[in-house]
């Protein structure tokens, strides 16, 4: 694994795993969203590490920096988009959390999903079913 000599990647993966663990295992939905954000930032971190080269400088042309020593600007441009996307997902999800809490009174995902649908309790299955 030649890639792993770069500890940035290892760190990004570690953070990614922490985030994934949180999303899957933790039952509190706000925690899940925090986990989601950790996952996202870890991936951004990974991208930025990709573009980085040892002793590089920021890819800004205004100064007198040497273009050859600049870090790769493409991942950075991508991440800018990524951050915006991540923010909107988080915002949408959080607004849903508020709505859910209002209607179910719980943030626990198990309780939330276990709650029976009101519609299903109505008419019990009558009739002989299939022909």
């Amino acid at each position, binding site marked *: *694994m030649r890639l792993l000599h770069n500890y940035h990647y290892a760190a990004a993966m570690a953070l990614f795993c922490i985030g994934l663990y949180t999303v899957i295992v933790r039952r509190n939905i706000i925690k899940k969203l925090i986990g989601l954000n950790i996952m996202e930032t870890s991936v951004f971190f990974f991208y930025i590490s990709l573009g980085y080269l040892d002793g590089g400088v920021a890819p800004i042309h205004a100064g007198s920096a040497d273009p050859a020593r600049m870090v790769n600007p493409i991942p950075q441009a991508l991440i800018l*988009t990524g951050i915006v996307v991540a923010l909107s997902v988080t915002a949408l*999800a959080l607004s849903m959390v508020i709505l859910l809490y209002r209607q*179910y009174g719980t943030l626990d995902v198990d309780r939330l999903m276990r709650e029976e649908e009101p519609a299903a309790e109505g008419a019990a299955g009558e009739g002989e079913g299939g022909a």
Partner: protein
Amino acid sequence: MGAWRHFPIFMITLPLLGAVLMPFLGYLRERWVPYAALLPLAASTLLGFLLVGRIPAGDHLSYHLGGWEPPFGIEIRVDHVGLFLMLVVCAITLLALVYSRRYIEKEVSPGRRTAYYVLYLLMSGAMLGFTATGDIFNLFVFMEILALSSYALVAITGNRNAVRAAFKYVLMGAPSSIMVLLAVGFLYSVTGTLNMADLASRIAESGYTEVLVVSYILFVIGFGVKAALFPLHMWLPDAHSIAPSPISALLSGLLVEVCAFALVRITFSVFTRSATDLVGGTADAVGVAAAAAVLYGGIMAITQKDLKVMIAYSTVSHIGYIFLGITAFTAEGLTGAMYHMLDHGLAKACLFLCAGNFIYLKGYRRIEELRGAWRQMPWTCFAFALASISVIGIPPTAGFISKWYLILGNIRAGKWLYTIVLLSGSILAAVYCLRIIYYMFFQAGKEEAWEDASRDVPPGMLVPVWALSLGTLFFGVFSYLLIPSLLKASAYLL
């Protein structure tokens, strides 16, 4: 360089632009919004049809955004298969939008209707972009727009079940998006490019096999969640059944397919044949999952009592069909998968809209309640029957043709077990579809349940339903319009 070279980008941007403008219109003249929303989609559809026949056989149309050359700029890349799917997307979104005008009066509160149209256009544009883009990061961005708008649309009614279903969808969808992003990062790390065509040539040379495999697995999981491939489908039955019916139609008829198509692109356009042996193991796993999906979805659909949940499980099963076609790695299999996207899009959208008709007119959701429905709603019921026939795969509907090629492809690949799975899938489909047809036509329900013997839904809702169901028939009989070029395009992809 004719003007038509610009059409794909217009097809994508028009709905997005419409989405941006719609809130202003909603502020000024809210009553115009449902009609104005039709314009960009109709224009996209028109442009799409104008493109038919322009793309040289076995080639693709490449468009560089802002004139930047591919490795740096974003490329829009439309080949035959892509254009085919774009047209499907345009047509179905347009029809479901026509349908929406009357339908959402029932389910969406007045304050949210403009938002509904904005999100709808956003979703349509994103689906088009998702299909056409030739840049994998761009793919991610469109996927996120698509995902965001679909999360919001599932929850748009704001009632507790809807929000819960949407949240479940977010909880699975958002991590999957991040996985796709990570996969894109991995690919970028070993190739240094984001352009699909560029990637295809560089992947073969790069030696980082492990990274490629991991990246492919992440793609599979990421798109697998969005496309509701079997073990990752948990969000689908809730979200698809609780969303307003036109949205269910889009989610079930298009979104899952567009995501499956993304995997097709990743598999065949990015990893290509040289790397197929590399990702072969993963593809085999996908095949197993797909086979399980076909059976699981079918069996679950049989046990359902709620009509829309049943249709949703049927989607799980049919996604399995599509993936089985893809993993056959033969031109026939891929053709079958692509044609199934068309067929399933039309049929499933039609089924959901029909279910919407029942909800709209009677508020009935349960299968039991449909007994004798044809006395009051003959048109809806006949359309439903026609679409179900296509879902089962009985000739002369499009479902038959796609099943033909799916099975042919799997036979050619020597995958006997999958052939049997596909066949049993259609038996299962027959069980769950014929049950409903039987209830509708051959069983007398309670008299008072369908008392109003002459009233069907308004024409604005019937026309889309019938257009879709006749579409399944049309593409079954006139399959020669598409199959030869799809076969050629599939062979080209392979």
